[in-house]
């Protein structure tokens, strides 16, 4: 039997505040791509709550908005955000 570790009550975990609520943003809009972009990876995956630090309510609203943006043709399903800087003339469709 191993020794039971004594719990150190002085080292309590610090509660992080939700960054979206801290910034004073009340509604998450699916058209606000610059905001949504912060909570997806370069591959377009939604970042989990334990990493992003969002609260439960904001995370559900964020996932809802991201999925809506994907369906509206604003975010990619697989490649994340596509910049608008590229000129139209250089566009070549994929084969």
């Amino acid at each position, binding site marked *: 039997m191993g020794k039971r570790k004594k719990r150190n009550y002085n080292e309590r975990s610090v509660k992080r505040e939700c960054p979206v609520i801290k910034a004073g943003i009340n509604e998450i809009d699916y058209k*606000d791509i610059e*905001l949504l972009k912060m909570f997806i990876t370069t591959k377009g995956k939604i970042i989990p709550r334990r990493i992003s630090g969002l609260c439960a309510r904001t995370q559900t609203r964020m996932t809802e908005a991201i999925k809506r943006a994907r369906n*509206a*043709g604003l975010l990619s399903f697989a490649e994340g955000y596509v910049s608008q800087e590229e000129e139209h003339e250089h*566009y070549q469709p994929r084969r």
Partner: protein
Amino acid sequence: MNQNQYELILVGDGSLSMEDNSKLVTKFTGIVEKAGGKVIAKSDWGRRKLPYEINKKGFGIFNLMFLQGNGTMVDDLQRQAGYDDSVLKCFTLLVKDAKKAAADFEALKKDPKKNAKLITEGIGG
């Protein structure tokens, strides 16, 4: 009938000229008025690069309409969008206040990085 307020996002074909696009919008306003609805505000997001190809098209013209009407109007809009080849995407969302939503979108168009900046400043400070 119960009147609700909606937000319609209409993605037109990117190869359309702006005149053809305005014709498309007037067509949809006609459908709304025929179904007993009302257009509260219209907005245009311009030609944008699509993150994935839709009907082998790489660009789309984004139009937003804020409407008041009933459920049958929404059904009509969806049906007509399905028939039209120049429409790549079309869906409606229920909003609480269409005027506020329109004003919010205009503010977002002016400063798209406003909310993202607020978060980065919050983390940094």
